[in-house]
């Protein structure tokens, strides 16, 4: 008898140990919990800080009142239709690991009982996290992952505010076409044979391999010749043989998809190898980070990057200027593509919740599908936010658009991004050809 008793004590003891490990979230009143999954440590920690700052700024604006900002969420304190409920953010760090991201999403949904999820920057992580959200019917808004495949999976609980790489890559080829037709401000029509040869180097990830595929597709469509196209291991210590390969292809236009450290290394190596392409274009990410500019200094003058936001937007958009000032006060940096989109992501969440007037997933789903945010309320230069509800791109914002910026040295001697595409909003003459390092 006693041994049975002892045995069952042992069993219960073990269970109690397992139970102890359960962290229970306290239930707050009048707040809406949004789980935010970003790469706060790991190789993209710098981007993570930017994203986090963008989201936090948006939350501060949403939870307080800033009457002078012409956006709905600044006029109300909290969510008006939810009795002034405040937004509470729960940050999690996925370290760039998709499996970890999925685990965190489960934890946020089941343990922290979040009402929705925002994230995750890396396309690969967004993929697994959105799959978890779909299974648990928890709405997720993605603001900065640009792999086209994400919205092609028919998910009903996933919305993406940012335009994706297909649009951006098309923008690039429109720009190249524009060059040959003399549409670019400050550049005479360039004979096509001068920029016909392309070469691309993208990192070996979900995002990079999609970009690489898109470049291949569009090159064919627009009649360019892709002389070299390869994927390289992300976070390489050395890219010299890759760069030599690019040089060997004698390409006039070199295209990259890289995160920060690789982008810096790539440009440094190009410089060391004395490469002289006529156009260098980066697919956002590393090429528009503040570190890219600060470490490489003047040598990046003439490099192009696609983006959705650059400081020049401030000059054509008053709201962007106001938010940028707030952001600069908070972090010391200007808004960039990552932070502006993260800001917009949370803004969309607020608008969706406002419209839903409840935190029931079904109401949020209906609200998200019907939402329309006009462009004048956004910091990014889009026509607005409206999600596609049919066709093969469910949940994709159809009113977004991209920009192509070029690093140029201003009169004050500082390097900054100027808009060169779309042609009608370009802010400076394009430097062509690339002057060399």
């Amino acid at each position, binding site marked *: 008898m006693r041994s049975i008793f002892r*045995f069952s004590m*042992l*069993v219960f003891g*073990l*269970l109690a140990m*397992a*139970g102890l*490990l*359960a*962290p*229970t979230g306290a239930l707050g009143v009048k707040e809406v919990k949004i789980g935010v999954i970003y790469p706060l*440590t790991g190789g993209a920690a710098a981007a993570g800080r930017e994203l986090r700052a963008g989201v936090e700024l948006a939350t501060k604006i949403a939870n307080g009142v800033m009457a002078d900002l012409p956006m709905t969420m600044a006029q109300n304190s909290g969510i008006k239709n939810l009795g002034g409920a405040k937004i509470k953010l729960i940050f*999690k*760090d996925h370290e760039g*690991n*998709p*499996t970890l991201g*999925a*685990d965190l999403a*489960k*934890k946020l*949904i*089941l*343990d922290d009982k979040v009402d929705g999820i925002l994230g995750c920057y890396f396309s*690969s992580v967004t*993929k*697994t996290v*959105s*799959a*978890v959200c*779909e*299974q*648990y019917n928890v709405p997720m808004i993605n603001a900065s992952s640009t792999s086209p*495949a994400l919205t092609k*999976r*028919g*998910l*009903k609980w996933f919305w993406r505010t940012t335009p994706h790489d297909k649009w951006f890559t098309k923008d690039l080829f429109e720009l190249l076409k524009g060059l040959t037709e003399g549409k670019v401000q400050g550049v005479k029509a360039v004979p096509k044979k001068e920029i016909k040869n392309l070469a691309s180097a993208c990192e*070996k*990830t*979900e995002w*990079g*391999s*999609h970009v690489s595929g898109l470049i291949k597709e569009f090159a064919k469509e627009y009649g360019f010749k892709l002389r070299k196209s390869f*994927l390289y291991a992300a976070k390489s210590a050395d890219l010299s043989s890759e760069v030599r390969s690019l040089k060997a292809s004698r390409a006039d236009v070199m295209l990259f998809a890289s995160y920060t450290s690789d982008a810096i290394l790539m440009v440094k190596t190009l410089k060391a190898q004395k490469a002289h392409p006529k156009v260098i274009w980066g697919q956002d990410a590393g090429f528009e980070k503040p570190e890219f500019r600060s470490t490489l200094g003047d040598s990046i003058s003439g490099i192009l990057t696609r983006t959705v936001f650059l400081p020049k937007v401030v000059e054509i958009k008053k709201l962007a200027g106001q938010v940028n000032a707030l952001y600069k006060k908070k972090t010391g940096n200007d808004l960039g593509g990552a932070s502006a989109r993260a800001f917009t992501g949370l803004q969309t969440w607020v608008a969706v919740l406002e419209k839903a007037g409840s935190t029931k997933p079904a109401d949020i789903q209906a609200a998200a599908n019907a939402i329309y945010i006009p462009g004048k309320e956004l910091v990014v230069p889009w026509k607005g936010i409206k999600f596609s509800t049919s066709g093969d791109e469910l949940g994709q914002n159809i009113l977004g658009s991209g920009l192509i910026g070029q690093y140029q040295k201003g009169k004050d001697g500082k390097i900054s991004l100027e808009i060169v595409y779309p042609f009608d909003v370009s802010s400076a003459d394009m430097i062509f050809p690339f002057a060399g390092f």
Partner: protein
Amino acid sequence: METIRNALDFSDFPRLDLTVAGAVSIAFVVFPLFPHSAFAMATMIQFLMFSLYGMGWNTIGGYGGQVDLGKAQYVGIGAYTTAVMLIRWDVPFWVSMPIGMCLAVGWSFIIGYPLFRLKGHYFAIATIASTLVLKDIFEVWGFVGAARGLEISPIKYNPPDFLRLIFRDDIYYFYTILGFFFLGIFYINWFRKSRLGFQLRSIKDNEDVARSLGINVHWAKVKTYAIATAFVSMVGSFHACYIKSIEPEDTMSLDISILIALMAMLGGAGSLWGPIIGAGILIPLKSYLKEWLGAQAGLVGIDLIIYAGIIMLISAFEPRGIWGIVEKIRRRTRS
């Protein structure tokens, strides 16, 4: 019949071992009925998966004494077989898992046959190299999704789908892997008493003596390697269904290989309970250290530092792992 009886026969263990093992098993079985966090559940599944990996590794690494640091390639083969077959041809898990095991075993012969001519560190390093080569190939092979990996669609199947092993709630996965876990224990229990098991131990003690006893050393090693591979590949298939999205970087990373070997080593290589103890200590330690220290205080990597510290201490002072310590204490109290 004889085999089954042998597999279920644990009579050569002390009673204390069996009591604790029984209590732990019952605790596992009833665990999901008690309130628990999703985090605890995920940790539990991780633990069971790694115990199984460790058991597989233990056959060749523990009983056979060949340090294999390339198990991740077989995790990858298992996971990819299941995922590719499910996505492309809608083959259910219960069919694709054995096929994956066959493929993995086939590959293990190709790799293992030449490799077992090497000994000691040469062998260990060569297993790492072969994993890296396979990973590089999978990263560019379009048929298996190249670097972007494969995703099992979250909306195409209706969970719970027992045939394809597609579930929404972790509890189903928990019981599936728990079933594998018990089967694994029974298998290893049989294995250690089998002919091959004894051959291996004599090889580990002294290869030349084993050869002089008429044991085909090379062939015994290759066979055991295949068994270890089958274990790992089976769990790999499960991993694909559980995670639902696989990439070479994720499933074939060297970290997994190392974790598998270290866990078994820490617990005590060459004993039945060793890998389970190792996984039982390291997996929760890793998860919770990360949760408490890493994420909150921003102390990234502290979990692995503690973990590495333990490994260094163990390898320097008690190479037979925690189980070795337990046995030492026992021997001392007995005498």
